[in-house]
């Protein structure tokens, strides 16, 4: 199914790229020309303001945007904090301006951009939702002590139990309890943000490589921090491998340590971004063909992909959590005989597909 979609997407994107030079040419003569590639990249990328909609045309219409704070650090000038509305329409403020959504100094100096961008705002929103939802669930347990779960508690309890029994216990083994808070947090963090990303006008947080990289790095740090001697013994003296072969095996295993979280990073990023690109591509069809008759196709395919993305949202959260649990399980395992193909095989395959999608 995924391959089919990717193929479809590739076919659809071909004319897009082919059209691009034509579009830029047309832009010179006609401001109204539509460039789907630009529109899609703009939608899945980050921004310094939260743009919901534009009423009327680009030049004279009303932009419904939420300006967000810009926090920039310049080694020469120090910290500057101001509203992003000061940078609207390419204006410069405080020696800073936006160039393709990148904060740059007018004098060409180095700028460290710590702005509350659209993604950071969305991140804060999701953090708030997570805290509200799960403290409410925890309150349910306190109020309803020892009883059967009720309300929101009964919705999340099976998921929590599933993560505990099917993911943590099976992958990590007897030491699973220490890792439960992390596993539950990444699962719900990814799931909630995937769902938030599907909302119209929302940010594409889990489809941002910085976010997935941070999560994958945390998994790597936790895996390495909890690794025992068996884990390292397996890497530097793989049992049952002849001594000369170790010359090849040790680098391969060392690369494996990094490749595992790398695959986590790419998989989540590519799956979520690809989903957004496909949905946006179907929407772009209307503007490419400039015909209302294409809208049933857009509607049908767009709805289909959107519903599929709902499934992908929880599936990717589950896969990320499961693989994290497996990597941790491999690091804390006492008997090191069974664990190696668990994460590797499936992970490598997924990453391959993900790269193809990109």
């Amino acid at each position, binding site marked *: 199914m995924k391959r089919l979609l990717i193929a479809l997407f590739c076919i659809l994107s071909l004319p897009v790229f082919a059209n691009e030079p034509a579009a830029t040419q047309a832009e010179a003569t006609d401001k109204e020309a539509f460039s789907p590639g630009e529109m899609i990249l703009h939608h899945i990328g980050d921004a310094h303001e939260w743009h919901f909609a534009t009423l009327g045309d680009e030049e004279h219409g009303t932009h419904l945007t939420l300006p967000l704070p810009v926090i920039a650090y310049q080694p020469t000038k120090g910290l500057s904090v101001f509203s992003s509305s000061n940078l609207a329409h390419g204006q410069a403020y405080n020696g800073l301006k936006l160039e*393709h959504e990148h904060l740059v100094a007018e004098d060409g100096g180095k700028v460290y951009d*710590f702005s509350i961008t659209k993604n950071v705002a969305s991140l*804060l929103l999701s*953090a708030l939702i997570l*805290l509200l939802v799960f403290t409410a669930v925890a309150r349910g*347990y306190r109020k309803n002590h020892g009883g059967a779960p009720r309300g929101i508690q009964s919705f999340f309890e099976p998921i929590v139990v599933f993560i505990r029994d099917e993911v943590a216990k099976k992958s990590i083994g007897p030491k699973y309890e220490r890792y439960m808070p992390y596993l539950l*947090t990444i699962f719900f963090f990814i799931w909630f943000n995937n769902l938030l990303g599907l909302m119209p006008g929302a940010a594409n947080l889990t489809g941002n490589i910085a976010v997935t*990289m*941070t999560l994958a790095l945390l998994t790597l740090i936790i895996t390495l921090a909890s690794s025992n001697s068996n884990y390292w013994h397996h890497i530097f003296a793989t049992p049952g491998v002849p001594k000369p072969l170790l010359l090849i095996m040790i680098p391969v295993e060392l690369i494996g340590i990094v490749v595992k979280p790398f695959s986590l990073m790419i998989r989540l990023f590519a799956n979520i971004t690809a989903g957004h690109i496909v949905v946006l591509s179907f929407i772009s069809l209307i503007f490419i063909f400039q015909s209302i008759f294409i809208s049933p196709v857009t509607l049908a395919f767009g709805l289909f992909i959107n519903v599929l993305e709902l499934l992908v949202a929880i599936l990717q959260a589950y896969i990320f959590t499961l693989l994290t649990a497996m990597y941790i399980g491999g690091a804390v395992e006492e008997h090191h005989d069974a664990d190696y193909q668990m994460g590797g095989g499936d992970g490598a395959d997924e990453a391959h597909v993900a790269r193809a999608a990109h």
Partner: protein
Amino acid sequence: MDLITPNIGLIFWQLVIFLIVLFLLAKFAWKPILGSLKEREDSIESALRMADQAKLEMQQLKAGNEKLIAEARMERDKMMQEATQMANQLIEQAKSKATEEGSRMIMQAREAIQNEKQAALTEVKNTAAKLSIDIAERILRRELADSGSQQQLVDSYLKDVKLN
């Protein structure tokens, strides 16, 4: 290329916010949730174990009761048997006593009858003797006028006496 270039600001915020969320959720959500789940599972498990134990105890109790009932029944049977036996014995005893008494009374009666009979006979004998003596007196008064006849009589008497 923009798409796959991680932004330092976003990494920073993601790290900070994620770690805060992780800390807060671990403290205020996951700990109580997992704790309650474990507690509930433990209580269910212990309840099941207790139910099993209660079932076993019940079975033991039932078996004990049955044993008790069987014992009681046996006891009752034994007591009934003993009672019957005793009653039979008593009846037997009473019967034999009655028979004894009866025969004793019969014996006494017989003895009394014998005594009465003896007394009656003695009386009859005495009366008869008296009567005979009277008769003899009278006869003698009449007869002894004649001395031969007297002799005759004495002889006959003597003969009689010898015969006696």
